[in-house]
């Protein structure tokens, strides 16, 4: 054991990025991941994912509209947000991100609009493919930038890894698939999400693998990295990291989805999806908040308490976003009834004949 230090005086430093920033990352992730799922059907023309294209597009549009509200509410001077546009700074990932978000939101809305209007059974999917391809590129850029935003901070051991943009991207697809599965089940109450449910374990595995890699590197790296890994594995955050994020959010859903029961039972799939979503929420909170709690100059974990303002904003935005999503999914042509009369998502609007 090395020398021991006992701090008896220092000032208290604060955690300034709280749940609103975590929620922002969660929402952009769900949007970008949903766009990816939508693009599997429309851009890559994979038949089995076409029924999810419209639902996914609506989710992508709603969540990208809601996401920036968190950032605006988190600004100390929200009325000055125009400065982001009139004083750009291109060494700042956040400055790039503002423009990326704006363009991505416009493209997502346009893509969703085209998707809702088109009668793709007649084969007029050219503009959708184009907007979808642009949107896919932007979705990856948006998710990568949020990862880079954190990776570009050399002093924070939990953030400063080149894996972060990819970790965010995979986590985004995981959260999106989970939400789409839940929404699809709520809309149709029937089996029919199997193809998407089969995709989720692969992304859960990739997510888990990256988590393991990052934890090993932290543990064996710098003193700060070892301390961060200790806090997550054996310290006060073991329940949030090991239990909620890793076990409940990755391992259990993976086990459910690779089991015969989980694959063939829509309830099992939905439960796995719900657990996955909880895990992703924990992931975002752990990365953003725990990343700042690891001391940089002191000797103890910085404390964080959610403020009333943040709680109200996160709650209201969440409720409004989900209400808007429910309204749009109810009133837009994303689901209908099949020839047997059961509710179903609408693959036929994407050019797949009934009964195929």
């Amino acid at each position, binding site marked *: *054991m*090395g*020398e*021991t*230090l*006992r*701090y*008896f*005086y*220092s*000032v*208290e*430093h*604060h955690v*300034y*990025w709280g749940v609103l920033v975590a929620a922002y990352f969660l929402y952009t992730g769900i949007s970008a991941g949903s766009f990816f799922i939508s693009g599997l059907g429309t851009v890559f023309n994979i038949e089995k994912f076409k029924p999810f294209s419209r639902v996914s597009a609506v989710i992508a549009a709603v969540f990208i509209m809601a996401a920036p509200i968190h*950032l605006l509410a*988190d*600004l*100390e*001077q*929200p009325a*000055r*947000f125009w*400065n*982001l546009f009139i*004083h*750009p*700074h291109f*060494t*700042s*990932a*956040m*400055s790039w991100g*503002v423009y990326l978000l704006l363009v991505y939101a416009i493209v997502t809305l346009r893509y969703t609009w085209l998707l809702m209007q088109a009668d793709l059974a007649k084969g007029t999917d050219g503009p959708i493919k184009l907007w979808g391809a642009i949107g896919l590129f932007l979705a990856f850029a948006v998710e990568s930038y949020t990862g880079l*935003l954190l990776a*570009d*901070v*050399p*002093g*924070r051991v939990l953030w400063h890894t080149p894996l972060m943009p990819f970790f965010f991207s995979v986590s985004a697809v995981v959260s999106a698939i989970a939400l789409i599965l839940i929404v699809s089940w709520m809309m149709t109450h029937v089996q029919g999400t199997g193809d998407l449910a089969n995709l989720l374990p692969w992304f859960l595995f990739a997510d888990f693998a990256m988590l393991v890699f990052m934890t090993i590197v932290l543990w064996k790296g710098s*003193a*700060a990295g*070892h*301390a961060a890994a*200790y*806090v997550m594995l054996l*310290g006060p955050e073991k329940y949030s990291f090991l239990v909620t994020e890793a076990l409940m959010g990755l391992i259990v859903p993976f086990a459910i989805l690779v089991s015969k029961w989980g694959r063939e039972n829509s309830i099992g799939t939905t439960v796995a999806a719900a657990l996955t979503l909880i895990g992703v929420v924990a992931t975002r909170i752990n990365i953003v908040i725990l990343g*700042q709690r*690891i*001391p*940089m*100059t*002191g*000797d*103890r*974990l910085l404390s964080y308490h959610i403020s009333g303002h943040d709680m109200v904003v996160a709650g209201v935005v969440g409720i409004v976003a989900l209400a808007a999503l429910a309204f749009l999914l109810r009133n837009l042509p994303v689901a209908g009834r099949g020839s047997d009369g059961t509710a179903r998502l609408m693959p036929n609007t994407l050019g797949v004949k009934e009964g195929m």
Partner: protein
Amino acid sequence: MAEEKKVRYAMVIDLRRCIGCHSCTVACKSENNVPLGVFRGWVKEAEKGTYPNVSRERLPRLCNHCAEAPCVDVCPVTATYQTADGTVIINYDRCIGCKYCIAACPYNSRFINPIRKTADKCDFCYHRITKGLAPACVSTCVGEARIFGNVLDPNSEVAKLIGANPVQVVRSNLNTEPHVYYIGADTGILGAYFGRIEGDEK
């Protein structure tokens, strides 16, 4: 050819002279009207070792005015910038309070000013140094442990001290090129100490 830089402000803190009176903290608070609960400059103190082999270490802290300042790089509205003399300062009228600079600063030197509602930090008392005065913490230091000046001037006291003594900076591994130098700082207190977190100490 670009004009050669003539002024680069830096501070040397000679810990052999520091008595731990915290008057620098108080002078800074008073000079810059720093609100309660936040600090532009402070002194952290720790005991090192196990009885009877113990020593008391202290480290006055402030913004390092890094040559490669992460806070300058990440500011999305260029509210944080570096002047020609190397001082990192904030345009308070432009700052949107996104807190990215606070997250990016590896030294915990930044905070949100709860009254002004912008990022805030030590600016070497820019309103004083541009008038030829020393920063408040320097002029108040009873042991004359703090020395401020132009590091590019070989006749300045800071240049002489840096040249003639082993000096340390906080978290030197980060390639930020801090411009607050310490003489006689213990390595244990220069960065973070993780023993307490990992349960070495109850």
